[in-house]
């Protein structure tokens, strides 16, 4: 594991000691190299996990997430180059250090063996994200957004600390590898109800669950592009990953405790999809679409069947790449027109045809077109919820229709139609932007050829 952590840590001296015109090149290139080494993690042993040491391990659930995390850092750096042009070199280096620090914490979170270590790193990821949102965001509302983000997540996760310490006291160890085999059925009692809630709420807020999702549109819209990318792609998956790990300890309470949250997620999935149809702000639309996709993941994790876990894992990876790509596309729009309102920038297909191709691909993957991994994830979740309860197929079907509706609405509004006069002289797509989109799309399309690597431990 140190073979990932130490190079990531050393990215920081790399940026600080680089020459001013080489900071982007150095950091992007080296983080890309590190992301290639992450593929070594795929060499898993059968059912068991790859144990590096007592502190770090990775299994087929955390491997795809880790690869996604490390793949995303060069992409974030590429996407941020334009809006940081006018800043001083120290500020740029500071920004890159924040991203690297966040990357470090994320790697350690996904590979943590000890659950308290997981918790510490989970909380630690909040700090660089908050700094990125509030310092480099675009509008004055970003302070409010940062506050919402910080306090929602903190309040949700404080009970988790208490619960983890309680488990440590009663069981004696919080090492996940041991806990996997220790897991004893949790009897029904009021204190165990609170234990279940305390364990799960942190991740529910992070996912986010429909009733607790208020921080997400704010944080996503106000964050700079790198912040939006990492929030949508990785930080939401932290919640999913945590839920998948912690539910191992909470059986059989989950069978009945999960009902309210499943209901909330099923309802919320449709609600947030419908809100997307009424959005005028492009980034806000993509943020609500994230909530909708994550609601599917929550449902899948809470019903705890093998197929649903496979679907949840696949969906997390697919959504990470798709959402991140959509945010990059929205940002490329924003950098040219300085407005996030969709109707002010229309008909881009005639002006930027290649970017329109990326928009098309991203929208198609967002609406879960076969044979992409988005569809595989959604399909598995739909099938498993159908066998859990027949009625959910109506809701799921409705959700898929509305998802298709708003994805196509976004595509048609931004790309089709006659272009407005004031976008006549937008700059053509940069190679950097095209590279960014293709680096998002390539893994997504390649994974459709071999999706079993992202189907998680229950495959």
């Amino acid at each position, binding site marked *: 594991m140190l073979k990932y952590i130490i190079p990531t840590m050393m990215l920081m001296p790399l940026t600080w000691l680089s020459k001013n015109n080489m900071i982007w090149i150095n950091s992007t290139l080296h983080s890309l190299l590190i992301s290639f080494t992450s593929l070594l993690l795929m060499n898993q042993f059968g059912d068991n996990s790859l144990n590096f040491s007592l502190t770090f391990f990775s299994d087929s659930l955390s491997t795809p997430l880790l690869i996604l995390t490390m793949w995303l850092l060069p992409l974030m750096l590429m996407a941020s180059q334009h809006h940081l042009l006018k800043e001083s070199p120290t500020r740029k280096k500071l920004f890159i250090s924040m991203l690297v620090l966040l990357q470090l914490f994320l790697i350690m979170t996904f590979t943590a063996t000890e659950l308290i270590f997981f918790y510490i790193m989970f909380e630690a990821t909040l700090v660089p994200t908050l700094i990125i949102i509030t310092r480099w965001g*675009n509008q004055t509302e970003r302070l409010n957004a940062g506050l919402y983000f910080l306090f929602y997540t903190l309040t949700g996760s404080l009970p988790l600390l208490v619960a983890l310490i309680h488990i440590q006291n009663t069981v004696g160890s919080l090492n996940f590898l041991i806990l996997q085999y220790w897991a004893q059925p949790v009897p029904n009692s009021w204190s165990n109800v609170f234990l279940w809630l305390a364990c799960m709420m942190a991740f529910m807020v992070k996912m986010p669950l429909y009733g607790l999702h208020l921080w997400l549109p704010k944080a996503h819209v106000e964050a700079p592009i790198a912040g939006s990318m990492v929030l949508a792609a990785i930080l939401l998956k932290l919640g999913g990953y945590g839920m998948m790990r912690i539910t191992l300890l909470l059986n059989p309470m989950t069978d009945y405790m999960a009902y309210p949250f499943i209901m909330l997620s099923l309802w919320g999935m449709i609600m947030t999809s419908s809100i997307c149809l009424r959005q005028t702000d492009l980034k806000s639309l993509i943020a609500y679409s994230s909530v909708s996709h994550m609601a599917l993941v929550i449902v899948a994790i809470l019903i705890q069947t093998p197929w649903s876990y496979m679907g949840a894992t696949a969906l997390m990876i697919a959504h990470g790449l798709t959402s991140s790509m959509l945010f990059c596309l929205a940002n490329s729009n924003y950098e040219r027109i300085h407005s996030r309102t969709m109707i*002010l920038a229309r008909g881009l297909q005639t002006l930027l045809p290649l970017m329109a191709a990326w928009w098309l691909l991203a929208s198609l993957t967002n609406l879960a077109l076969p044979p992409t991994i988005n569809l595989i994830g959604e399909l598995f979740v739909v099938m498993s919820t159908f066998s859990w309860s027949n009625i959910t197929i109506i809701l799921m079907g409705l959700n898929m229709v509305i998802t298709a509706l708003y994805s196509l609405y976004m595509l048609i509004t931004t790309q089709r139609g006659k272009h407005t006069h*004031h976008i006549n002289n937008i700059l053509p797509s940069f190679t950097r932007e095209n590279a960014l989109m293709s680096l998002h799309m390539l893994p997504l399309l390649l994974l459709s050829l071999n999706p079993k690597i992202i189907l998680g431990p229950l495959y």
Partner: protein
Amino acid sequence: MLRRALRLRLGPCLSGRGLGTYRGGSTLDWDGKVSKIKKKIQSIFPGRAWSPLYDTSHLPPERSDVVIVGGGVLGLSVAYWLKRLEKQQGAIQVLVVERDHTYARASTVLSVGGIRQQFSLPENVQLSLFSAEFLRNINEYLAVVDDPPLDLQFNPSGYLLLASEEGAAIMERNVKIQRQEGAKVCLMSPEQLQKKFPWINTEGVALASYGLENEGWFDPWCLLQGLRRKLQSMGVLFCQGEVTRFISSSSHMETASGEQVTLKRIHEVHVKMDHSQEFQPVECAIVVNAAGAWSGQIAELAGVGTGPPGTMQGTKLPVEPRKRYVYLWHCPQGPGLEAPLVADPSGAYFRREGLGNNYLGSCSPTEEEEPDPGNLEVDYDFFQEKVWPRLAQRVPAFETLKVRSAWAGYYDYNTFDQNGVVGPHPLVINMYFATGFSGHGLQQAPAVGRAVAEMMLEGHFQTINLSPFLFGRFYFGEKAQEHCIL
């Protein structure tokens, strides 16, 4: 407790009066301090307005989708129609930047407030027709919940344009065009004129055209306030400040025929606060130039007209401020309540003002006697020498008038063809114009606002085709000339 202790200690010295009973509150002001601390703590909670930085509530926001420079009736009309024509509520953020919220020098409130359809360009007639319909139904267009309805004090007395022998043919042609567009205008011979309006001296008048419907005058201040109120309810931001700078970027592009052009786009608008050096850069996608008499200066800031003369880059916006006087006089023997707004072929005009035998009027000065637009001082000699003789010649009762007061206002005068400029600039691609109406801006404002909003949202004019009024005509030399201006 501290207060009591202090009181006990100082009791013998301050006879009768304790510390706490000092008139105006205690010198230590505990209650004030506690409430201040409470307010501060409350404002830190999420959902309240708090910023750890200094208070910037007087500054405009850091970004806005559309920035409208100029808060007169044209700017507010564009804002209104933008908010009305947007597909979903709250889609577009609009910021109206107005330098002077007392509107002391704005053309809107200093205007005579007339509305007529008697133009010679069909577009002008259509614009005025729609505006008349807007003003007629203003309480449906500008309704705000819980606010009283607007009373525009619309006097539908009509316009009476008089023509001499030379102008009679033009007038007939104009009336035909007006009738084609749907305006209700009637032509009168001098005899009919004398019968209908006995107080007119028809000497030298060959033909008169009288607007029968949708013409008259109204209160421009009421329209302005109604628009402001409605816009505030629709979520448009107002800010007081002066636009001092545009930050823009240029890119060289090639047209389909192969010639090189440099297209410019405005990224930021610097809005400077009053009486201070503080300014706020507002990042924007579109800028609307509705600055009225000062549109020329705003256009120059954006780089319109900086180039070799004779090219599109070198074509300036030919709008400049021209001062016009308006005189108010009292004449008990005057025409009375039935008087329309009468426009003499010599250029003088007058209308009734109120119900107390007062009349407003003036005359357009010729090119040589243009007053200096540096200030808004009134020249009463102009009335004595130019306006009164003409008025007295046309309406004999006006020989015994008494001037009560006068004021001066600016026309946003389009020196090219005295008609408005609407639509985007071909080279500064995100600046839209809504200015240059040379004295008939107020009456056409609602329709022009809609046209500009359609141009911004759809890319072409949908309801009224104002292509003759685009900026390109200044370069191509195609005048959209109107034949008489008041």
